[in-house]
């Protein structure tokens, strides 16, 4: 029988852990500390940068091309290895946390501010970005999150801001380098206002000019180099920024703060939240209520996230969304009671076999979406023949590799779905010829794959 509690844990979290549901509402722990960073700590941005700086120094010190190639090869392998360590950590946190709504929000915001590594040595930065930018800021003000995301080395590198130069700046004039619009455009289109948010190409260009000066230095991380900043004021959405004799990073912060509480931003991100958590075609009332709270509280993400999880339109029983592949794997591991301790003990081959290769085959290659807009939301994007085949195959093949003894398939209905279980599924599972296929049916069921 579907209960409100079971539905909430299913829709806003990752479902039960071996049948046990959390005894609190989804948003109840959001105001408390994020425990998972303590339980499963990862590398900080500074540590990743330090490693990159070390590799660069080694490259510079290399006596000959032969040694240089060797160093490159080693740093490539080390980057890949660290990325696999990170994948285990991120899975472990999602699986172990009681505060599942927080974990889901981490994924939502990491996707909203998608960064994709360029080259193996940058791979570990994607998790560092999620840990340092997303996790500490998802229950604060959006302006704080926005500033942290836009000025992080991973974002500045991914969307080419680190190499964009004011054409009339001291540096631009001297070396003849100039502007790159990439981050400015995505800041307006994806991160804040939305494509219908009322900005023009001129606003994109003006924002790009204003963002000049922001750059990345492997020793220091994000730096503001006023010699690269375009002199003079820039006008974005009719408001003038900067113009003091010396360009200042504060002018960029001012733009970000204004964008964070712009009505178009409130509407765009409220819509995105509703689409991600509730429906591909969410209720207008839900979007409007969230946007109103956004504007009233100045973009308080705790208030907005809480309102979302408590909104009647977000708690209807119809399961309209598909669990994305990462969510499928996490929910399945929780159902099977495979915990972080086991996950962090997997070797690379096991991690790939259990999680990363199947996720890719389900259409979601870990940390590699196609572009800065992140993963698609449409149900039809995830429940395709090839993706569903892989989910079915995973459900039958993997559980017996993950546990010494497979749970009885009839009990597993409850382990995986708890209050969301239904009798038809139970009857069907009871008729399967093998335990593995019975467990597989549960994991392949529309109930388990929808939310």
């Amino acid at each position, binding site marked *: 029988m579907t209960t409100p509690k079971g539905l909430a844990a299913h829709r806003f979290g990752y479902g039960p852990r071996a049948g046990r549901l959390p005894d609190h509402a989804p948003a109840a722990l959001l105001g408390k500390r994020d425990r998972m960073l303590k339980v499963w700590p990862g590398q900080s941005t500074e540590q990743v940068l330090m490693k990159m700086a070390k590799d660069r120094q080694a490259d510079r010190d290399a006596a000959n091309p032969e040694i240089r190639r060797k160093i490159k090869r080693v740093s490539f392998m080390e980057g890949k290895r660290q990325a696999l360590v990170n994948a285990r950590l991120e899975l472990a946190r999602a699986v172990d946390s009681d505060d599942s709504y927080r974990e889901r929000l981490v994924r939502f915001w990491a996707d909203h501010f998608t960064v994709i590594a360029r080259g193996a040595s940058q791979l570990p930065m994607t998790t560092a970005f999620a840990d340092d930018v997303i996790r500490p800021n998802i229950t604060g003000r959006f302006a704080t999150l926005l500033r942290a995301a836009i000025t992080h080395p991973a974002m500045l590198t991914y969307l080419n801001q680190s190499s964009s130069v004011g054409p009339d700046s001291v540096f631009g004039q001297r070396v003849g380098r100039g502007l790159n619009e990439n981050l400015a455009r995505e800041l307006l289109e994806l991160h804040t206002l939305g494509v219908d948010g009322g900005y023009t190409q001129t606003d994109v260009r003006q924002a790009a000019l204003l963002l000049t000066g922001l750059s990345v230095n492997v020793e220091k991380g994000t730096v503001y180099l006023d010699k690269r900043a375009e002199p003079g004021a820039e006008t974005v959405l009719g408001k003038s920024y900067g113009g003091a004799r010396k360009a200042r990073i504060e002018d960029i912060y001012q733009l970000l703060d204004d964008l964070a509480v712009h009505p178009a931003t409130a509407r765009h991100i409220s819509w995105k939240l509703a689409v991600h958590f509730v429906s591909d075609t969410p209720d207008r009332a839900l979007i409007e209520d969230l946007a109103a709270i956004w504007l009233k509280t100045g973009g308080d993400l705790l208030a907005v996230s809480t309102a979302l999880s408590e909104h009647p339109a977000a708690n209807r029983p119809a399961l309209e969304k598909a669990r994305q592949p990462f969510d499928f794997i996490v929910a399945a591991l929780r159902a099977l009671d495979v915990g972080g301790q086991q996950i962090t003990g997997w070797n690379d081959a096991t991690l790939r076999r259990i999680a990363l290769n199947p996720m890719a085959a389900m259409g979601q290659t870990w940390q590699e979406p*196609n572009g800065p807009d992140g993963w698609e939301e449409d149900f039809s994007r995830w429940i395709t023949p090839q993706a569903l085949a892989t989910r079915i195959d995973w459900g039958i093949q993997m559980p017996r590799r993950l546990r010494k003894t497979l749970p009885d398939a009839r009990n597993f209905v409850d382990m995986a779905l708890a209050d969301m279980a239904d009798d038809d599924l139970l009857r069907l599972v009871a008729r399967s010829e093998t335990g593995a296929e019975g467990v597989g049916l549960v994991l392949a069921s529309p109930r388990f794959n929808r939310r």
Partner: protein
Amino acid sequence: MTQHLDRRGFLRGGLALGCSAAAFPLMTHATFASAPFDHRLVVVILRGALDGLDVIRPAGDRAFRSLRPDLGQDEGPALDDYWQLHPGLAGLMPLWKAGELGFVQAVSTPYRDQRSHFDGQDMLEAGTAMDSPPEFRREGWLNRLLADIPGARAETAFAVGREALPILSGKSPMQSWAPDTEMRVSPQGRRLLAQLYESDLPFHAAAETALELTDMLTDADPPTPAEDDEAMMAPQKVMMPDAGRANAEVAAFAEFAAARLREDTRIVALSLAGWDTHAGQEQGIRRPLARLEQLMLGLQAGLGPVWQKTAFIAMTEFGRTVRQNGTKGTDHGTGGAMITAGGAIRGGKVLGRWPGLADSDLYAGRDLMPTGDVRAVAAWVIHGLMGTDKGRLQTSVFPGLDMGANPGIV
């Protein structure tokens, strides 16, 4: 809906009989052979905005070099005394010489000014104009084309890969598959799955196709546990992007697509990403070009004699800025290029009305002025290939399109 219920009935009947391919009456060659037309169409979406000016370079335009001092310095093969091909596609020159490779310059969709990849791709795949009615925007133009093909069935059109391909999604039945998908289920498991999905249409449809295709493409018998474990011990695919994996994937797609097209599939759609070259384009564009070249040559090799009946078109959401930007790359623009290939096209030409590169020739002072519509090119190819009525093309496939004069591609 009727269509769906029929297919569902078929699934149930098929499953009740067992799991071998022979139990699926629709999957036999006899019925496959009654394909609606004999030509083949391959449509590739180049996601991220291909820089048409770097790939098909107007080397004869005196302004060109000065607009892009750091791009296009790596000399490529001359197509004629005006156009030069990017050296990354030099492997396609035999096709060009055989008249099986062509280009169209300065084309775009009707999308203007906002230069968003995502809206640009939506419009490209929906085949709509800025003011098209909303019902057209949620389905792909290739899918609408299927509705106009008498006798088209699900396997007539294939979306290849793991990516969503809106260009082929919509009401008409089609198939989608990635070549390396596995599904190991016992006959009883199949029956239970059919019941599990009975009342959930999207799951039902996806599972039905998955079962049909695994039967068609692999041995219908599920592997024994021993084989299964052996397969598990095989070297695993690497997770991170590198040229090796990407190219192997493209090769697998080409092989799979060619195998389908040699049989009863007539239309294949797939996508290649990686064209968003904002910085360091000289290096950055090489990998996607290598993949495109591999795809085209892989198709040609895999299709054998069928290549002569094939038209290949590659299109992108928009072009890129005429001038290089401040970081040796290019930003989002408007007019772009299309690539055509195959034995069914009349290649060896760079088509399109060339607008020129002088400041006053540019769109919004920054982009290549679009002088033709991407959709018109596609429509003329389809018209020539399948004989689809022009009126239908201009109303139901590409609503509101004016095809203009026949460019003579097919």
